[in-house]
């Protein structure tokens, strides 16, 4: 019988160790590598002596010499096998730059060893490391209570520390904690039982790593990031990428995002022949039928359950650059295979990783962590980081230095790009607005007849034009001559009048315009309806406020006189009510200021809205 070829371990497990050199971390890692047989004899022979045994810490402290030479230490990767598992251990020796390095190492980790000195117990540092693990989605923790020899192997001490840690870990969402009392220096409970701790009957560290349950990712719908399109000759067009969730099969219905176009998988092409099935983590090339348009940065998703597409997110951000984060500045955002312009639209707060405290902050400096909202230049397909690391984790690249300035984890979309799933989105309202280099807005002028709404609105529109902003004016009288000429002045007709105008204004904002609506619009409820019809922040209510006497005294069109004479019914202010706004975005005292002064204030409001809503 021919023996089966040795194809090596079955499962790749990424591991991170948290703790300081003082906790015996280097010794523990050295011991693990040694016990796993990952250290060649020529390296063991070179180890210095420590109490009659080779000093294992030197296996990993080789970098300390480099540190003295001023060489940056960040993340070092080491490899060892236990049973059917290959471990890729990411070790972060530095104290300086610690957050950045640990976040980098934790970003791919399946499992963490958190090291605690039995004499010291859970420290601020332990809590900081654990918070970072929770933030980066490392859910499984092995708590190694080390240096047990220095507390006489005390069971009570071990249990007190474990209880303390578990209570804290639960608060931050780390519920999968296995605790082991170890003595790395002598190897106690690393690869074999420690005679000084007969009370401990659990697994040693190696057994724990070999057997710890790493839950299969819950069955997820298929997603593939598109890295490129392969077109070697006219008869072949393949989409090359990596499957980041679920599995792909020929015949499966898929949707290309963000376009929303549908297709089926035709073949899964590899150098080794076509595949019947390809699963998460694999790099493949698909052909699609029909041969629809796909490009780098797209996501191919199971048609039955496509992910969300959005251009605004709330996300945690870890800052990694010496140049502080500047909200409002444009960075390159890389998510999957897509690179796109993005700005931090709002920095909500900074997180103190030592305490979990949230602090207001205008910026993030190196190693700071914050919660923020981001606005992207175009919609992208994504999943929350908690659902999929590859579709929810992104980096920000400084456009000037090209360094990786920050890393983020998407929590959720703030605003879904509409109509993505039912229908292919070709040109979005964001696209139209971007073309005009502005954010759409509705300036809704309300007030009594004769208050000066149209006069002020006209002046404002002239100013917008002068600034190169694209606008349109909807004036009550004009609209009543066309679109609304079938409506009278009953309350019901007034409501319909406003509903139609609100819909038109909405369409105009979809076109990317700044819409000036100059209507008496006497009822609060209809103005509220109009506001809700618009995107959040796009509706600005401007109350042109004059006393009735002043408006009536002006009576430019002679309407008050007619109403007083009984020739006009349902006239606002005379025999029909005007409900003044409780909290307008701007109130103009039209009796006490000039038209230009009023326009100045409104233009300032427009500028503020453009800045916060992020026109480029």
């Amino acid at each position: 019988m021919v023996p089966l070829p040795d194809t090596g371990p079955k499962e790749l497990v990424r591991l991170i160790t948290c703790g300081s050199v003082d906790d015996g971390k280097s010794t523990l890692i050295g011991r693990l590598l040694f016990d796993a047989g990952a250290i060649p004899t020529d390296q063991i022979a070179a180890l210095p002596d420590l109490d009659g045994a080779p000093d294992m810490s030197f296996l990993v402290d080789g970098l300390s010499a480099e540190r003295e030479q001023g060489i940056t230490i960040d993340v070092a990767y080491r490899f060892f096998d236990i049973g059917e598992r290959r471990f890729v251990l990411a070790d972060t020796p530095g104290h300086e730059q610690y957050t950045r390095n640990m976040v980098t190492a934790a970003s791919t980790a399946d499992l963490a060893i958190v090291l605690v000195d039995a004499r010291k117990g859970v420290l601020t540092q332990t809590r900081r490391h654990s918070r970072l693990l929770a933030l980066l989605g490392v859910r499984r923790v092995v708590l190694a209570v080390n240096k047990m020899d220095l507390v006489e192997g005390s069971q009570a001490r071990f249990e007190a520390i474990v209880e303390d840690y578990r209570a804290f870990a639960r608060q931050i969402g780390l519920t999968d904690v296995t605790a082991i009392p170890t003595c790395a220096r002598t190897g106690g409970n690393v690869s074999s039982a420690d005679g000084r701790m007969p009370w401990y009957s659990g697994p040693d560290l190696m057994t724990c790593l070999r057997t710890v349950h790493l839950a299969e990712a819950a069955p997820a719908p298929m997603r593939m990031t598109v890295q490129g399109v392969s077109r070697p000759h006219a008869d072949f067009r393949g989409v090359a990428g990596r499957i980041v969730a679920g599995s792909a099969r020929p015949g499966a219905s898929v949707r290309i995002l963000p376009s929303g176009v549908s297709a089926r998988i035709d073949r899964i092409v590899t150098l080794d022949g076509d595949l019947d099935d390809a699963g998460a983590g694999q790099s493949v090339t698909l052909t699609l039928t029909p041969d629809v348009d796909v490009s780098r940065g797209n996501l191919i998703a199971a048609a039955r359950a496509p992910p969300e597409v959005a251009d605004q997110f709330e996300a945690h951000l870890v800052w990694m650059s010496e140049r502080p984060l500047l909200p409002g500045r444009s960075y390159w955002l890389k998510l999957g295979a897509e690179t796109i312009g993005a700005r931090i639209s709002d920095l909500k707060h900074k997180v103190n990783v030592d305490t979990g405290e949230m602090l207001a902050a205008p910026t993030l400096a190196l190693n700071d962590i914050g919660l923020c909202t981001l606005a992207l230049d175009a919609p992208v397909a994504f999943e929350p980081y908690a659902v999929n690391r590859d579709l929810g984790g992104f980096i920000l690249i400084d456009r000037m230095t090209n360094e990786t300035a920050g890393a983020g984890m998407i929590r959720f979309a703030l605003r879904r790009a509409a109509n993505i799933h039912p229908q292919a989105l070709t040109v979005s309202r964001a696209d139209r607005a971007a073309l005009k280099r502005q954010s759409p807005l509705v300036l809704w002028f309300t007030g009594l007849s004769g208050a000066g709404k149209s006069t002020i609105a006209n002046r404002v529109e002239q100013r917008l034009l002068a600034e190169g902003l694209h606008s349109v004016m909807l004036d009550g009288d004009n609209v009543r001559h066309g679109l609304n000429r079938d409506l009278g002045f009953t309350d019901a007709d007034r409501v319909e009048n406003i509903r139609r105008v609100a819909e038109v204004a909405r369409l105009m904002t979809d076109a990317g315009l700044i819409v000036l609506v100059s209507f008496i619009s006497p009822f609060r409820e209809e103005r509220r309806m109009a506001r809700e019809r618009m995107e959040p922040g796009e509706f600005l209510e401007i109350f042109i406020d004059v006393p009735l006497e002043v408006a009536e005294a002006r009576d430019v069109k002679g309407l008050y006189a007619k109403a007083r004479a009984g020739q006009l019914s349902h006239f606002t202010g005379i025999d029909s009510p005007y409900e003044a706004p409780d909290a307008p975005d701007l109130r103009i005292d039209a009796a006490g200021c000039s038209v230009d002064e009023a326009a100045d204030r409104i233009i300032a409001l427009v500028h503020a809205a453009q800045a916060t809503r992020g026109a480029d």
Partner: protein
Amino acid sequence: MRLHDDVLGSLEAEAIHIFREVVAECERPVLLFSGGKDSAVLLHLARKAFFPAPPPFPLLHVDTTWKFREMYAFRDQAAVAAGMPLLVHRNPDAGADGINPFDHGASVHTDLWKTQGLKQALDAGRFDAAFGGARRDEEKSRAKERIVSVRTAAHGWDPKRQRPELWSLYNTRLNDGESVRVFPLSNWIELDVWRYIQRENIALPSLYFAADRPVIERDGALLMLDDDRMSLRPGEQAQMRRVRFRTLGCWPLTAAVESEADTLEAVVREVRDASVSERQGRAIDHDPSASMERKKREGYF
């Protein structure tokens, strides 16, 4: 059929992903190809990454003129088989000065032929990304190397400018003159390379397999006499020994190991049970005047 769902499968998928990212984002990539086992694996992965198209970049061999004769033949065949152009660069200055490992020592020889030669070749080809077969398990200072490693316009490795690599996101954006060295095998260990060669049936030079070869023993190392350029010291005498090579560099600088492993199965077994590290046979690593760290800063691959 299905792809292999094991560690080799994961490492293969990661390497293919890296190749595709760099090709999509860089303008002029090149694959450094010596004909050694790591570059043979690299070439195989590149072919998988772009199949059915050939990899969209050339192969580059920075020749020291002191490679094993068989490697030259193997190198040329492999390029033809892959359908990729092969560029060969020899540092003309080193040639003019007759630089060799015997008269000038391992450091000077390596610096002029390999390090300076590589910089010349990358500049001449205006390559902004060079794929190499280095692995993190090879040498202590490589344990922290990035997968995409940024080099200055002068090809220097500035540790302060290395970028954090989170998830599988690589930042390949470059300032003027900068380039990247890319290591798709970063997370492989030596045994993975051998198991993969076995699984994928990748052709290799026969030097990797045990055979009776003429060697001399010098300073504790077994050196194979690949041509007549080596002058023997008094008392040295060529003898036939059953040896093979774990790595292949310049023949006077690469020690053979005694071995009976003459098949891939036997080599995998031997590497698995080996108790000394792979680069132990590389004279350059033991040269006390220059650590690997320093060589990297100077532009060594």
